[in-house]
């Protein structure tokens, strides 16, 4: 469990206290132009086809408009996914070419709330199976299988693999009121979980609040080092919409009347390691921390190719 983050937040708090009298200035970093790298974000879930986004790193500071970046999306790459027996070659779809009814699906994958964002600001492109529009694609995720990803783009070759572990559905999910009776509209989400033996299971969670997409929490992955084999109750933060203004008082809480869907996924270690390092790096900045390099499982690029052994549970807060 990532409770160790408690004291790191403390240090951050102490740093902030120290910084009360400090001063922050904008500076220009004098650095040579770094090389551009390909970034993979791909998922596969039980019963769902692989979906992959291929983008490039943005190698500069200043204002960046993703639509004006010629090469932000990596187009015309050759992308294949194999489960060891069957192989499928993915095709690229861009948002501008898609029918309206498919937009929510894409929004879901990208974690974009179409209501608040008022539609897509960027012409998003994704790679997926060619028979996606049939509604019954042939190549979908199955528990227990290992999926290999191969990408060829110009003279670059990127590879990765990920294993789909069996879902571990929570025994139940429930809510508890806010500790302060004055905040009687806020509630916290709790999970009761029977963690299976042996040690070595990893989890990632997402929550959906009403019609929003699934969002992960700031600290979304767990290992079972401390809770292996135990029946355990714990609380998780509400998944956080990155374009939402951060509010310390309501962060992590749901509201009375919410319909909550918890997506609780079994993941493999490389997936766990990627999200753990990525989230730790995003969460720390300052003199008391050092650069934590997100541990990608993509050979030849950045990003993550992950299989989610997902279980879903719904709770209506009444």
């Amino acid at each position: 469990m990532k409770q160790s983050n408690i004291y790191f937040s403390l240090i951050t708090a102490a740093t902030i206290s120290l910084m009360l009298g400090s001063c922050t200035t904008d500076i220009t970093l004098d650095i040579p132009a770094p090389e551009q790298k390909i970034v993979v974000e791909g998922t596969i879930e039980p019963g769902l086809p692989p979906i992959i986004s291929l983008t490039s790193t943005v190698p500069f500071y200043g204002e960046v408009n993703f639509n004006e970046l010629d090469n932000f999306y990596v187009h015309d790459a050759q992308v294949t996914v194999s489960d060891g027996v069957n192989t499928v070659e993915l095709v690229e779809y861009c948002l501008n070419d898609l029918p309206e009814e498919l937009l929510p699906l894409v929004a879901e994958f990208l974690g974009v709330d179409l209501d608040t964002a008022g539609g897509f600001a960027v012409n998003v492109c994704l790679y997926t199976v060619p028979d996606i529009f049939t509604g019954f694609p042939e190549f979908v995720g199955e528990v227990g299988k290992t999926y290999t990803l191969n990408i060829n783009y110009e003279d670059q070759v990127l590879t990765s693999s990920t294993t789909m572990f069996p879902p571990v559905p929570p025994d139940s999910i429930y809510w508890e009121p806010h500790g302060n009776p004055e905040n009687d509209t806020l509630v916290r989400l709790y999970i009761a979980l029977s963690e299976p033996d042996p040690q070595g299971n990893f989890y990632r969670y997402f929550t959906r609040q009403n019609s929003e997409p699934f969002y992960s929490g700031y600290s979304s992955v767990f290992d079972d080092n401390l809770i292996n084999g135990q029946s355990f109750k714990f609380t998780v933060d509400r998944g956080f919409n990155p374009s939402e203004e951060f509010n310390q008082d309501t962060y992590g809480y749901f509201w009375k009347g919410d319909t909550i869907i918890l997506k609780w996924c079994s993941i493999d270690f490389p997936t766990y390691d990627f999200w753990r390092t990525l989230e730790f790096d995003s969460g720390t900045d300052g003199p008391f921390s050092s650069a934590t390099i997100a541990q990608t499982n993509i050979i030849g690029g950045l990003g993550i190719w992950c299989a989610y052994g997902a279980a879903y549970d719904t709770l209506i807060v009444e």
Partner: protein
Amino acid sequence: MFWMLTCSILVFAQSKYTLSGYIKDGSSGEDLIGANVYVKTDQVIGTATNVYGFFSMTLPAGIYDVTFSYIGYEDQVKTIDLNSDQRINVSLKQGEILEEVVIKEERNDANIQSTDMGTVELNIEQIKTIPVLFGEVDILKTIQLLPGVGGAGEGNTGFYVRGGGPDQNLILLDEAVVYNTGHLFGFFSVFNSDAIKNVTLIKGGMPAQYGGRLSSVVDVQMKEGNNQQYHAEGGIGLIASRLTIQGPIVKDKSSFIVSGRRTYIDAIVTPFLKGTEFEGNGYYFYDLNTKVNYKFDDKNRIFLSGYFGQDVFNYVAPDNTLNISVPWGNATATARWNHLFSDQLFMNVSAIYNSFDFSVKSEFQDFNFNLFSGVKDWNGKVDFDYYPGANHAIKFGANYIFHTFTPYSAEGNFDDVEFGTDTLSNKLAHEAGIYIQDEFDVSKRLKINVGVRGSYFAQVGPYNDIIYGDDNSTIVDTVSYENGEKIADYTALEPRFNARFIVDPQSSIKAGITFTNQFIHLVSSSTSTLPTDLWIPSSAKVKPQIGVQYSIGYFRNFFDNKYETSVEIYYKDLKNQIEYADGYVPELGSDIEDNFVFGRGRSYGAEFFIKKAKGKFNGWIGYTLSKTERQFDNLSTGTAWFPTKYDRIHDLEVVAVYQLSERWDLSSTFVYATGQATTIVESFYVIGGQLQTDYGPRNGYRMPAYHRCDVSATLKNKPGKKYESSWNFSIYNVYSRKNPYFIYTTWEGDFAYGAVDVQAKQVSIFPIIPSVTWNFKF
């Protein structure tokens, strides 16, 4: 080497007698450390007192004018008819500090005469004149004003010696190791200057009596307490107040000192935090030093000393839903027995305990969580000083330490379900050392200090060694070790050699080679020492760090030793250096040593030093040109050498003190250092609809240079009053330079909105800070 030692001892056989004794401060009875005793025949023959104020000198029978001197004190000359062994105790009178008249010229060339290289002794009174942040006198900040010593960052007590990390400094308080020297994340050191007598920094040519660290020794001695009269002294400053009481228990035989300090930042700041997002935060630190000594007779004396200090951070959420308390601190206790076997053989036996503990206690609704880590040592030590003849000073001894390291351990409960890190256990280790060294004159010009230290280290059970699978996370096996069973052990032989060659009365050349091993390690992901830092022992996976330092220096004094100058060049070769792996995330339940990678290090440089020690106007200028690099096969840098965060290419310090009048002292310091090497964000990418950062090469970017000027003025009350009182006015960062503390990257906008604006920002923490402190003594 032993052959050389024995041979040179045997040369003496004629009728010689030993003059020995103690040198003390006449008014307080405090032992004077490093005081000089010398006679002038056809050449100057002399010695200096050890840390207990003891000296011994063996000379051919005869009548001598023996001079006893100590900086800042009036010389005493005694005519001694040495026709039998004699013991005398000398009390020196404090003179006007740093006045020219007091100090005769002969032995002011100690820097030329001694074999010491890279060694600086600082008297606490000297340190007190130098301006400091918030007026809090701090020995660890003052030593950063010496060449070869780099500061860890703005206002920080952490320091790097000749490119070595903070964990490579052996910091001793009355012989007890102080593992974590900083209060408030390193902004203040744990050493309360009122309780401190003397500080010695050894940055190269470490004598064989010290072991266990690669870079340096900072040996801090507490005051013993005045054995003549009762005194109280203290101060009231912006951040903290201090009070010290000392006096005789039995006059001339026994004395005590108690010294305490506490901050009141919490009291000052709390009202201002109400209603802000910082409401509920509280912080304070305090420390307490105590020491007593008892002199049974001229041959036996005991000392008991102790230090206890704590930092406490607490947070209570305004709505009471979350309650966190984070105390951490050091404790040390030292019991020592000095015994004189003869006029030539001095012994000290010490029993030492020291510990550092860090804990977090939190309550969140039904969820209780406690986290703790620490280190604890039991240390036994015996040291002998043997003075067989005028030209020999032999030291030998042994020491043994039993270490207990507690890695991050946690326990907690949620309702009635309990959990904890019971699969991990403490790490236990034995560390032992034995040494001998001799300093002797080979000829009138050539003096040699040669020594050797043998070290042994073993990690022992009980311990459960957890073996991970290929994914580095799934446990595949656990190997259990019995109580006392050896898990891994290491032995090392560390030769030490220093030589001095007198070129002419004003100049000498010195050279040295030092081999060192370090068996316990602290790998900090930050730039300074933090309470969350974890010390770990060498084990099967973590090999001892090994260092070899070569140094050579030219020392020359000008104008009757008024000006001391030196140039020292060093090269350090370091093996088994430790860094965190690229994707390190601190996490409970994982063994920290599994997150380490190992590699090589090297550091080389030249240090230039010019000092005016005497006169109304005194001070020094130090400049260091150096380079410190590392190479780690298992980091993203691969076979390339990269600069460490301890690397400062240019480092300049200027310290000036001016005694304006009897009542006014002025002082000023200026420092300049090449910016710290750091890893910065070079490009960005989008994952999960959020902007992520991709880093450039490790430590591939230099922050802007660090420079700063401080001034202070001290106004003393009129002399001749019953009490002393002084006001210290100081200004930190006079021209309010915005020195970089750290650099971070931030952005506005979001991928969902199609555009972001990415900006690098620099945080500077201390602008110009004036402060005033009132000190008193009666």
